[in-house]
C-alpha cells in the first residue's frame, strides 16, 4: 500500500521547474519511472526515502504516514524502512563487501548475507574493499546491500546500468522474485525499456518533473505507427549491394537482420537512419532460446 | 638585562637617571637571571646584567663575558605575605606556617631562584621545612610565587620584600619581614658585559649607568623598594 503526492521546485537545464508526482496503489506494486536525464527521477526517490524535503506533499506507506507537510509530519530516513540503490552506489569504503551487507542487516546473519552475495555473483569477493572492485561489481554490492536491509519499499535508481546483459537478466529476475516473495513495493528508475517492460506493473513517464503518461508497460511501449502485428524499430547499420537488390543490415535491439531493398527504397534510407521494419503477411514461428550473450 | 624583582625599583631608577643624563637611552629587559645568563652566553645583545644571584655574574666573568668588576647592588629580603582577607595573622611570625588554617604556602623554586634558596634556608633554620613540606607550592620565579599568594590559591607566600612593597600587594595584603639571620644573604650583583664594548657610545652609557647604581641616590631608591644595601 503506497500513496505518494509530492511537489518540489527544482532548477534544471531549462531553468526552474516544478516537480509534481503522485501515485497510489493499494497493492504491492512494481512501479517504474521512466524519463529524460534531469527530469527529476532521482529526486522523487530521495524524497520518498526522506533524504530530501518536499515543498508540499504526503507520503503514506503501508498505513504509516512518512510525510505530511500539512500536518508537519516528516519522519527521518532512519525510520523509513527503505532499501535504496544509489545512482553512485555510496558503498562504505571502510568495510569489506561482506561488512557492507552485514551493516545493512538489523540482525547480523552471515549465512543470509553470503546467500545474497551468491545471488549477485560476488561471493568470492566478500572480503574485498569496495574501491578494489570494478564498476559493475560495486553496483551489485549496492543492490545486495539494499536487499539485505529487508525493506518495505525498494528504491532502485538505475540499479543495473553498468551491467552486461547476462548478469543483468539474472538480477532482473532476482529483483522480481524478491518483490513477489516479500510483497514489496518497488520503485525502479531505468532507461532500459526491456527492463521496465519485464519488471513493472505500472510505468510512469515523466518529463520536466511532470507526469506525461501512466499505464501498464505494454500500453506505454506498444508502438502506434502501423497496425501490423509484427513490426520493429531499428537502425540501419550497413547497406550492401546484392545482385540487383540492396541488402540493408538493420540493428533491432540486440539483433541484426538483413532486409532486401529496392533501388527506390534506398534513395530515402541511408546508414544510421532509424527505420520501422514491419511485415504485412507474416507467419511467425517462435522457439525457446537459451539464455546467453548474443 | 635585569632580574624580575627589580621591576618596580627600576622604574624610578630610570626616571632619576634620565633626569641626570637626558641624552642616554636605556632599555631594560626583565627576566629570570638563569634565562638571562643563557642568553648572554649565547651572544645576546645585553650591555649590563643585574642578576638576583651573584653566581650567574661570576660565571659570566669566568667565561670572560664581563668587562667591568662585579659589584653588589643589593641584598634581597624575604617576607611572609598573605591576603588581608585570609584570617591569618602573619605578624605572629614564621610559626604561623604551622597553623591549620595555612594549607598551602608558595615558595620560589629553590633549585634556581635565589629567593627560593633563601626561603628554604630560613625554613630549615627554624626546623620547619620538613613540617610544612607538604604545604609547599613551588613558584617558578618570585613573581609567580607572589601571584599564587595574591590570587588566594595559597594562603601564605614567602616572597621578596620588593614585591610585597609594590602598590598592588601593599594594598591587598599584609607581610611579615623574616629575620635576615635565618638565610644567607641574597647577593645581587651586576656587571657590564662584553657586548657593550662593541660600540663606544654604548659602552660609555653602560659605564655611566654602572656607576649611577652605586651612587647614593640610587641606593636610596633601592632601599625604598625593599632591598638592603651592601656596605661599600
Amino acid at each position, binding site marked *: 500500500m503506497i500513496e505518494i503526492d509530492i511537489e518540489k521546485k527544482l532548477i534544471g537545464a531549462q531553468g526552474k521547474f516544478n516537480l509534481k508526482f503522485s501515485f497510489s496503489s493499494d497493492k504491492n506494486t512494481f512501479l517504474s519511472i521512466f524519463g529524460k536525464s534531469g527530469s527529476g527521477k532521482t529526486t522523487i526517490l530521495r524524497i520518498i526515502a526522506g533524504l530530501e524535503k518536499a515543498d508540499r506533499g504526503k507520503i503514506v506507506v503501508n498505513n504509516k504516514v512518512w510525510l505530511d507537510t500539512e500536518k508537519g509530519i516528516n519522519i527521518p530516513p532512519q525510520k523509513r524502512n527503505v532499501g535504496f540503490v544509489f545512482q553512485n552506489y555510496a558503498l562504505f569504503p*571502510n568495510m569489506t563487501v561482506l561488512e557492507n551487507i552485514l551493516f545493512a542487516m538489523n540482525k547480523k546473519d552471515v549465512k543470509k548475507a553470503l546467500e545474497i552475495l551468491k545471488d549477485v555473483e560476488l561471493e568470492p569477493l566478500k572480503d574485498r574493499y569496495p574501491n578494489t572492485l570494478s564498476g559493475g561489481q560495486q553496483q551489485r554490492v549496492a543492490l545486495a546491500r539494499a536487499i539485505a536491509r529487508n525493506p518495505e519499499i525498494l528504491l532502485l535508481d538505475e540499479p543495473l546500468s553498468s551491467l552486461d546483459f547476462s548478469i543483468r537478466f539474472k538480477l532482473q529476475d532476482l529483483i522480481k522474485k524478491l518483490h513477489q516473495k516479500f510483497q514489496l513495493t518497488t520503485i525502479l528508475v531505468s532507461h532500459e525499456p526491456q527492463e521496465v517492460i519485464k519488471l513493472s506493473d505500472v510505468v510512469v513517464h515523466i518529463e520536466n518533473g511532470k507526469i506525461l503518461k501512466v499505464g501498464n508497460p505494454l500500453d506505454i511501449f506498444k508502438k502506434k505507427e502501423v497496425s501490423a502485428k509484427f513490426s520493429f524499430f531499428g537502425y540501419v547499420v550497413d547497406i550492401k549491394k546484392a545482385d540487383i537488390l540492396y541488402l540493408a543490415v538493420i540493428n533491432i535491439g540486440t539483433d541484426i537482420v538483413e532486409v532486401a531493398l529496392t533501388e527506390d527504397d534506398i534513395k530515402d534510407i541511408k546508414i544510421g537512419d532509424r527505420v520501422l521494419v514491419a511485415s504485412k503477411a507474416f507467419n511467425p514461428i517462435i522457439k525457446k532460446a537459451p539464455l546467453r550473450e548474443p | 638585562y635585569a632580574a624580575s624583582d627589580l621591576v618596580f625599583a627600576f622604574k624610578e631608577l630610570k626616571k632619576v637617571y634620565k633626569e641626570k643624563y637626558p641624552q642616554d637611552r636605556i632599555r631594560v629587559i626583565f627576566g629570570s637571571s*638563569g634565562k638571562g645568563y643563557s642568553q648572554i652566553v649565547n651572544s645576546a645583545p645585553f650591555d649590563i646584567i643585574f642578576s638576583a644571584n651573584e653566581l650567574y655574574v661570576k660565571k659570566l666573568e669566568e667565561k670572560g663575558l664581563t668587562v667591568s668588576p662585579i659589584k653588589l647592588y643589593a641584598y634581597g629580603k624575604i617576607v611572609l605575605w598573605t591576603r588581608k582577607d585570609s584570617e591569618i595573622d602573619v605578624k605572629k611570625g614564621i610559626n604561623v606556617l604551622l597553623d591549620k588554617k595555612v594549607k598551602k604556602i608558595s615558595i620560589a623554586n629553590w633549585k*634556581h631562584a635565589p629567593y627560593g634558596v633563601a626561603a628554604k634556608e630560613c625554613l630549615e633554620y627554624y626546623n620547619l621545612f620538613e613540617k610544612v613540606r607538604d604545604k609547599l607550592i613551588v613558584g617558578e620565579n618570585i613573581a609567580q610565587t607572589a601571584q599564587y599568594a595574591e590570587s588566594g590559591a595559597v594562603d601564605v607566600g614567602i616572597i621578596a620584600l620588593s614585591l610585597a612593597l609594590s602598590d598592588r600587594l601593599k594594598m591587598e595584603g599584609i607581610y611579615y619581614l623574616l629575620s635576615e639571620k635565618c638565610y644567607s644573604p641574597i647577593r645581587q650583583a651586576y656587571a657590564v658585559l662584553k657586548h657593550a664594548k662593541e660600540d663606544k657610545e654604548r659602552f660609555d652609557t653602560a659605564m655611566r649607568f654602572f656607576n649611577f647604581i652605586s651612587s647614593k641616590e640610587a641606593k636610596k631608591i633601592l632601599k625604598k623598594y625593599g632591598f638592603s644595601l651592601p656596605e661599600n
Partner: protein
Amino acid sequence: MESIDFNPFFLSLKLGFVTTVLLFFIGIPLGYFIAYSKVRFKSVFEALIALPLVLPPTVLGFYLLLLFNKRGLLGSLWEKISGHQLAFHFEGLVAASLIFSLPFMVHPLISGFKSVDRSLIEASYTLGKTKLQTLFRVILPNMKPSIITGIVLTFAHTIGEFGVVLIVGGNIEGETKVVSIAIYDAVESLDYASAHIYSAILIAISFFTLLTVYILNKRFEV
C-alpha cells in the same frame, strides 16, 4: 646532575593520555555540531575555539588559576565535589590541558567531518542506522587521517606545554610535576646534563608513542 626521576614521565604520559582521550570525546560532538549544523553564526564558534591559543600560556595559566583556585568559580565548585580545589592538583592540570589543547583536537575533527562524503551518511540513514551508529560506523572510520592529526597534535602539545601547567599545577612532585617542568627546572638551574637526558628520554618516549599510533593506523588502513 641528579639521578633521573621517572615520576615526571609517568605523570606527563598520564596527563597526555587522559587529556587526549577526554578531548577526543569532547571534540567529536563539538566538531560534529560545528561541521554539520546550519546555525548562522557557526564561523563565530569556529573562531572562538581557537582563541585560547593566542594568549601566552603562562597568562592563560594565570587566568585559569583565578578560575581554579578555591575562591574561583570552578575551583570552589570542585572543592565541594572532591574536597580540594582544582589548582595544584592533577585534575586541575587535566582541566587546564582540556582548555588549551581544545583547538588541536576540534579543528582537525571539523575538517575531517567536512571531508566525509555526504552520500555515505545518507546511505547509512536509509539503512536505518541512527545518527550515533552512523557516526561511529561510517563517519569516524572514514575520516581517520583527521582523527590521527587531532590525537597526535593534542597529545604532543599536552606533553610539551608547560606554561599553563606550571602555573595551574604549581610544580608539586608526584602530583603536578610533569616532565616538561622538570626539564625547564633543569635548564633554569643550568643543569644542562639533566635537561639533555630528560629531553632525550621524553623525545624517545613520545616518538615511539606517535610511531605506534601511525603504525597501528596503517595496519588498519583500507
